[in-house]
């Protein structure tokens, strides 16, 4: 098994762990973490693909940087929503 394939597999597994968490967990905070794990899984797949050449494929690296910022923006909104929803429920 090559290094690329190894990291591709780790990325896929990470994506699946996130998906599983998202579908089976109830707590909003944990589900948001699960989404982030899914994202990291995809990014890992992309970077493993980028590392097939030396130096790494700059296009994929740039795409992942973009993806990371998109992910953190969405996470921030989701966390605020979760907090407000929970507060609304408890009061």
């Amino acid at each position: 098994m090559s290094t690329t394939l190894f990291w591709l597999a780790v990325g896929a597994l990470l994506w699946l762990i996130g998906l599983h968490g998202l579908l089976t967990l109830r707590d909003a905070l944990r589900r948001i973490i699960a989404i982030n794990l899914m994202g990291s899984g995809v990014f890992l797949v992309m970077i493993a693909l980028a590392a097939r050449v030396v130096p790494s494929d700059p296009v994929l690296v740039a795409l992942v940087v973009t993806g990371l910022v998109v992910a953190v923006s969405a996470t921030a909104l989701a966390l605020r929503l979760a907090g407000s929803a929970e507060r609304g429920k408890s009061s």
Partner: protein
Amino acid sequence: MNLALLSLTLPLVGALLLILLRPAGGRWVIMINLASTLAAAGALHQVMQTGTQWLELGGWQAPLAIRFQLSPLAALLLLFTAGLHLLVALYAARSRHAIGGEDFWPLSCLLQAALAALWLSGDLFNLYVTLELLSLAAVALVALAGAKAYRPALNYLLLSLAGSLAYLFGVALLYGRYGVLDIALLSELAEADVTTRLALLLMSLGLMLKAALWPLHLWLPPAHAGAPAAVSALLSALVVKGPLYILWLLWSRIAPVELAQSAGGLFAVAGIFALLCGGWSALRAPYLKTLVAYSTVAQLGYALLALGLLLRWQEPSLSAALWLFVLAHGLAKVSMFLAAGELQYTLGSKRVRALKGASQTMPLALFAFAVAGGSLIGLPPSGGFLAKWLLLQPLFQQPQHWPWAIGVLLGTLASAAYVFRVVALGFDRARPTPASFHPDRLAQWLAMLPALLVWCLALISKPLLLWIGGVSQ
């Protein structure tokens, strides 16, 4: 191309200026939308004459840069987006209760810009960014409704993100396999191997989740029903169509024919199920807006069915049916949600039962609802009828296709049933629900406007059919 860019930039710049300067939003947004609509109409006119135009952003060659693709269909969708935003803005400027807050205005402009960017983009990763933009705008708009909408909004956001990530996984696979992201280049390279199949599967599942296509539709009714009326109208008419467009691009452009044919059957079956399940749930919905939201699920079934059969038989004429469904449904659904919002607000109750006797208290709004419903059912001579006719034509030609026609028929019956459920209640004049305050006539007229437009589509049916057949190929 410049006009199309204008139609995209106007709302984007407008939104930023609205946020920065904070003027009273309504009037400005109507002007922005009007200008954007005109620009889109100009772009459509141009592109009909010259054919599909390409723009390489940044001046770099295609695999390196992102390309904009202005096909006639993209131009039509641009016009449709800007026009619907204009119609909604006209209503929203009149009915302050339908928007939930002053931030509605910049957000709706950003939504329009996101959609325009989506229609124009010809790059798989750029489409991912526009999808995220679209869902964040939609979630922010849903959250305008206040605390009770937070939970549906959160659910919407999480599922939408999961859908995006499934899509992104597919994009990564395609890039890993073929080394490019440009759709036109991919369509030349794509082969029916195991990686492509997996990528298409992941992307389709993600997009179906985002477009609320059966069986991944469960997040839609609470989110669309919980939003303010003007927002629900935009979400149902436009936002779910974005992922649908990408799905169509994927399967009709990139996917190899043998894969598309086998997937087409599945899409068509899912479409039939959407029609039946959505219709049934709409029939039993206790709240008016939930009913309308379920009707969106059902109507998306028609689009999915058209897409599926288009792929299965590789029948290009069905492409016209698909996009006509999208147009007709968009117009009718805007009207329906606005009318529902107006009824719900004036009668002071969300329940369907509260509509008792609405033909007396609010005849105009009820009429708007019925007119829009007529197009959803597919009564001639509405836009909905035209679309359904286009869909049924190839079905009737061969006897082995009749089972699909039966599915369409059942779906039609279901939609007739839920529309009549509302209208019949409205004509029940014994002990009508009194209006909480004086109904706003102008707002009701504005709500009816899109529904009238969808019936006008039928007046120009012959040139429209010829033309849309040309556009969508």
